[in-house]
C-alpha cells in the first residue's frame, strides 16, 4: 500500500492485457471458461479500483488533507522514482494534487458505469478488458509526473479507443476511427516537439525526487526559467496548445469529435466525453500554463477567441443537428470552450470554475451519451423528431433524459450550473460587459436542449401512445434494461449531489486555483501588465 497510484494505474493495464491475451494461449476449454467470466472479472477489478480511489480521495478515509497542499507538491507519490530508461532520464514518478485528484476519481467512477451500460456488448470477453486497459491508460495520464511517461499514456489511450470505435461502432465506424486516430495522433506528435524542446533545456537535478544528471522529463523540476528565449517559450507553448486543444477539442480542430462520438459505442462515447476530453484541459493546465505562465498571459486573447468560438460555434451548430448524439457531441465542444474562457479570466474563481466544469461535464456528458446510446439501442435511431412521446413507452429513459438535458443546459442545483456561474462571474470581473456573449450563448444552449427534449419525450398528440420511429418496424420498444438504468441513476444522483454540495470537490479546486494564481501566474500577470 505504500504506492497506491502505481497500483491504481498498473492493475487495470495488467489485468486487461492478461484477459485479452490469455484466451489465445490457454487450451481451448480453459479459454472458454475465462471468456465467460472475463467481463465479471473486469467489472470486479474496476469496482475495486473505484472503491480504492474513493478511499484515497476523501480525507475522512484516506487521511490526506486535500485542501491544504502547497503548489508544486504532490500527494501519494511513490517513495523512490523508478528509473525506466536511464540514458535519457525517464523515470516513473506519480503523484496527485487537487488538479488531478478529481479527474482520477472521475475516471475510476466512469469505468465501471460504462461497463455496466454495455453489459451485454457483443464479444464481451474483449470489450470489457479493453475498457479496463483504457482505464489504466487514462489514470496514467492523470497521475504521471514524468513528461515521457505522460506522453506514453497520452498516446496509449488512443489504441483501446480506436478498437472500441472500430469493432463496436456504428455503420461509418471505419472512417470515424481512422479520423479519430490520425487527427489526435498528429496533434500529439506536434506536441512532442514542444516537450522535446523543454527536455533539451532541462539540466541536472538533485532534489526531493532523486538526483539525475543530464536532461530529464521530471515535471516537478521543470520551470519557465529554463528556456532563455522568450520567442522559443511562446513557440513551445503554441506547440503544446496544438496537442491539448485538439484533444479538448476546441474550434477549429474539433472536427474529429462529432464523427468519433456518433460512431462510437455508448461506453466509448461516455469515456471519450467524460474523461478523454478532460485530458486536454488537464494537460493544458498541468504543462502549458504551469510551466509557461508568461506565454499564457501573452496569449490570453488567443484563448478567449478559441474559447468563445468553440462556445458560440458549438452551440450554434447544435441547433441545426437532427442526430441526437451529434448534437450532444457539439454541445461538448461548446462546453469545452467555457474551460478556455475560465482559464483566460486569470481569476481564482474562473480557474476553479474551469476545473469544476471539467468535473461536472465529466459526470453529465456520460449521462447524456448513455441516454443517447439507449435510444440507439432500443429505438434503433437517433433522429430527433422521428420518435415522439416516448415518455409513454420508456418512462425511465425519459426521466434520465430530462435530468441530463436540464443539467447540461445549466439548471440551478445541478452540477453544471455551479461551473457556469463561477466562470461567468470571473469573466465579468476580467472582461466586463463582454460577459454578455457567453451568457447569451447559454440561451442558445437552452433552445437546442429544450427543443430536442420536447420533440422526443413529449409532443405525441395522443394521451396514451407516442409516435414510434420507422426503424422499429412496428414493434413495441422495451424500456431500458436494469443495468442501463442503474448506471444512469448513479450518474443522475451524482449530478444532483454535486449541484447541491459542490464543495465536495469545489473547495479543493478553488484552493488550488488561488494558490496557482498566487504562486505561478501573478508574477507573469504583473510583468505583462494585465489587470489582475
Amino acid at each position, binding site marked *: 500500500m505504500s504506492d497506491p497510484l502505481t497500483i491504481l494505474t498498473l492493475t487495470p493495464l495488467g489485468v486487461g492485457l492478461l484477459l485479452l*491475451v490469455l484466451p489465445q494461449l490457454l487450451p481451448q476449454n480453459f479459454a472458454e471458461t475465462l471468456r465467460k467470466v472475463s467481463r465479471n472479472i473486469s467489472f470486479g477489478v474496476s469496482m475495486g479500483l473505484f472503491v480504492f480511489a474513493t478511499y484515497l480521495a476523501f480525507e475522512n478515509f484516506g487521511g490526506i488533507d486535500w485542501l491544504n497542499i502547497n503548489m508544486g507538491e504532490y500527494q501519494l507519490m511513490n517513495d523512490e522514482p523508478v528509473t525506466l530508461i536511464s540514458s535519457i532520464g525517464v523515470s516513473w514518478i506519480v503523484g496527485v494534487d487537487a488538479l488531478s485528484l478529481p479527474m482520477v476519481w472521475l475516471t475510476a467512477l466512469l469505468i465501471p458505469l460504462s461497463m455496466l451500460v454495455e453489459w451485454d456488448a457483443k464479444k464481451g470477453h474483449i470489450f470489457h478488458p479493453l475498457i479496463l486497459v483504457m482505464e489504466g491508460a487514462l489514470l496514467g495520464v492523470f497521475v504521471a509526473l514524468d513528461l515521457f511517461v505522460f506522453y506514453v499514456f497520452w498516446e496509449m489511450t488512443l489504441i483501446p479507443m480506436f478498437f472500441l470505435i472500430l469493432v463496436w461502432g456504428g455503420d461509418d465506424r471505419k472512417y470515424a476511427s481512422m479520423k479519430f486516430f490520425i487527427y489526435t495522433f498528429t496533434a500529439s506528435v506536434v506536441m512532442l516537439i514542444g516537450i522535446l524542446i523543454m527536455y533539451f533545456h532541462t539540466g541536472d537535478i538533485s532534489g526531493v525526487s532523486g538526483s539525475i544528471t543530464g536532461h530529464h522529463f521530471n515535471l516537478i523540476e521543470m520551470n519557465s526559467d529554463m528556456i532563455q528565449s522568450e520567442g522559443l517559450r511562446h513557440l513551445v507553448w503554441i506547440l503544446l496548445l496544438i496537442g491539448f486543444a485538439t484533444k479538448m477539442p476546441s474550434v477549429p480542430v474539433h472536427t474529429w469529435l462529432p464523427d468519433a462520438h456518433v460512431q462510437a459505442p455508448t461506453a466509448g462515447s461516455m469515456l471519450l466525453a467524460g474523461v478523454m476530453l478532460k485530458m486536454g484541459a488537464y494537460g493544458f493546465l498541468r504543462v502549458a500554463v504551469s510551466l509557461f505562465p508568461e506565454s499564457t498571459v501573452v496569449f490570453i486573447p488567443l484563448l478567449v477567441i478559441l474559447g468563445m468560438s468553440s462556445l458560440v460555434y458549438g452551440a450554434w451548430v447544435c441547433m441545426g443537428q437532427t442526430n441526437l448524439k451529434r448534437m450532444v457531441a457539439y454541445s461538448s465542444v461548446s462546453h469545452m470552450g467555457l474551460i478556455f474562457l475560465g482559464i483566460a479570466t486569470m481569476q481564482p474563481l474562473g480557474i476553479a470554475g474551469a476545473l469544476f466544469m471539467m468535473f461536472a461535464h465529466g459526470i453529465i456528458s456520460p449521462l447524456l451519451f448513455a441516454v443517447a446510446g439507449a435510444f440507439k439501442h432500443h429505438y434503433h435511431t437517433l433522429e430527433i423528431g422521428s420518435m415522439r412521446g416516448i415518455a409513454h413507452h420508456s418512462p425511465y429513459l425519459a426521466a434520465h433524459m430530462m435530468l441530463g438535458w436540464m443539467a447540461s443546459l445549466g439548471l440551478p442545483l445541478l452540477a453544471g450550473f455551479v461551473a457556469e456561474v463561477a466562470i461567468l462571474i470571473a469573466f465579468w470581473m476580467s472582461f466586463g460587459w463582454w460577459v454578455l456573449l457567453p451568457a447569451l450563448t447559454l440561451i442558445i444552449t437552452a433552445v437546442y436542449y429544450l427543443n430536442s427534449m420536447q420533440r422526443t419525450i413529449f409532443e405525441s398528440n395522443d394521451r396514451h401512445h407516442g409516435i414510434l420511429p420507422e426503424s422499429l418496424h412496428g414493434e413495441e420498444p422495451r424500456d431500458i434494461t436494469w443495468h442501463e438504468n442503474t448506471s444512469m441513476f448513479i450518474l443522475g444522483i451524482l449530478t444532483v449531489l454535486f449541484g447541491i454540495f459542490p464543495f465536495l470537490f469545489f473547495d479543493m479546486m478553488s484552493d488550488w486555483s488561488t494558490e496557482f494564481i498566487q504562486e505561478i501566474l501573478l508574477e507573469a500577470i504583473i510583468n505583462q501588465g494585465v489587470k489582475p
Partner: protein
Amino acid sequence: MSYLPLDTAEAELIIPELIMLVGLIAIILIPNFGDATFRIPLSRIKVPILIGGNRFKLTSNPKLPNQVSLLIFSAAFFFGLIQTSYGNVGDTLEVTAFSRIFTLIFTAALILATIATTHRIPARTNLKVPTDNDSETITTKKIDALIDNRRQVDFHIILIMVGLGMSLMSMATHLFMLFVCIELASLSSYILVAFHKETKVGGEAGMKYFIVGSVASAVGIYGMSLLYLWSGDLSLDALSSKWMESETIDPIAGIAVGLMLVAFGFKVGAAPFHLAAPDAYSGASSPVAGLLATASKAMGFVALMRILITVTMPDSGEAFWFSTIAIISIVTMTWGNLAALTSTNPKRILAYSSVAHAGYMLAGLAAIGSGLASEEAMKLVLTAIIFHLVVLVVFKFGAFLVLSLLETEGRSHQLEDLHGLARREPLIAGSMFLFMLSLAGVPPLSGFLSKFLMINGIVNISAGTGASDVSSVMDWLISVEPVFWLAFAIVLNSALSMFYYLRIGLVMFFEEPENTKPMKDAFSLRIAIVLCALLTVIIGIGPLSDSLLQMVNDAVDSFISN
C-alpha cells in the same frame, strides 16, 4: 596455430564470422555425405570417403540445411553477444563495439529469415521419383517437389554468404574491403530476390534489382577510383586525415564522394535511387524482403556513416554534403509515405515505409552534417540511427514474418489477403497491429523510442541556435537554423504514414475474410512472430531498452573515437 593465417587472439575477435565461414563450408558438404568409398588401387581395401554415393538418411533430409543454418546464425549471434574484447584483425578489419552491434543486427535478421524460410520453401521428406506410369501432372508435381528439396541447400548457402559479407563489411576500415564485402552481400541478395524463379514476378524483380544495383555499384566503384586518384590510399584513416589537411574540397574528391553516395543511397533506399526497391520487395519472398528492409538497409547505413562521418565530416563547420543530404532526406520520407498511401500491396507498402524510414535516418545524418552539433548531440543522433536500425529488425521483420505466414497458404501481395486476419488468427493479427503501430511510432512501442531519440537529437542540435533575445515566435523561427525544420518534417511525415499503417490494421480487424479456417500450423514461425511482438513492446520502455541503449551508446563511442 600456424595453419591459420591469423593468430589466436585475432581469431577470437572474429568468432562469429569464423562460425559463418566454417558453416558455409559445412552446409555445402553436409547434404552430400553418403556411403561412398574409395578403393585403394591394387588392393581390396575400401576406404569410406563419405562424400557422394547414397546419402545417409539424416543428410538426405531436405530440412537439414535449414536447421544447420539456423544453428550457425544462432551461434554467431550468441558469440557476438558475449564478446567483450575488441581490436584489429589484419590491416583492413577492426572489431569494435560498433561493428559488433551490426553483426548482431545482421545475424538476428538472418535468424528470423531462416525461421521464416522453414515454412516458405516447402521441403518434404520421403519424396518419390516419378515413374513411367505417372500421368503428366503428377510427374511435374513430383519433379517440382524434388527441385524444391534440392534448392533448400542453395538458399541457405546464399543466406550465409549474405551474413558473412555484411558482418565483415561492418568491420572494414579500408574502403576496398568495404566495397568487396558489400558486393558479396549484394550479389547474394540479388539471387535471393530472384530465388522463386517459377513465379514471373520473382525473376523480373531479381533482374531489375540486379541491373539497377550493379549500375549503382559501378558508379560507386568509379567514385572510389577517383578517390584513390586523389589520395593514393583507400584506408579510412588515411582518407580522413587527407580530408582534414586539405583547406578546400578538391573537386575530384567531392565528385568521388558524390558518386559513392549514389551507390550507398541505393542500398539504403534513398530517393531518387529507391525506385527498384518496391519492385524487389514485392517480387521477393517475404523473408528475403524482410532481409532487404532490415539487414541490407543497415549495411547501407554503415557505409554511409563511414563515408559521411568518418571521412568527410570536418572538425568544425558545415559538411559540404549537408544540404544535399537534408534535401534527399525530406524528399525520401515524403516520397516514400506518399507512394505507400496509394499502394494496395502490403509488401509494397512495407517497402515504401522502409524508404520513408531511410528518410528519417538520413535526416539524422543531415543534422550531424550541419556542423552545429556538439559531440554529445552528435552521439545522440548516431545512437538514434543505430537504435532505429536495431529495432527495425524486431518490428519490420516481424511484419514480414506475418506476411511469410500468409504466404505459406498462398499469396500476400494484395491487401485483401490480410482481410479478416483478426478473425482467423487473433494473436497474429494483434502482433501485426503492434508492428504497424511501432512502425508509425506510437508509444510505448520501440518504434516510438527510436523516432523519439531521432527528433530529440535534431531538436538538441538545433533548438539552441535560435536567438535568445527575441520575444515573438516568428522572430525566433526566422532566427533558428534550418536543421530545426527537419524535426517538423519527421513529425508531419509520421502523421502522414499513420494512414497506411492504420489501413493495414483496419482491413485485418474490419473486413470479412474469404475463408475462416485457421492457417497452417507453422509453429516456429508463430513463435518468432509472437517473440518479435513481445520485444517490440518491452524494448519500448523499461530495463531492456535501457541496456540496449547502453550497448548502442558503446557502439557510438567506439565509432566516434576512430
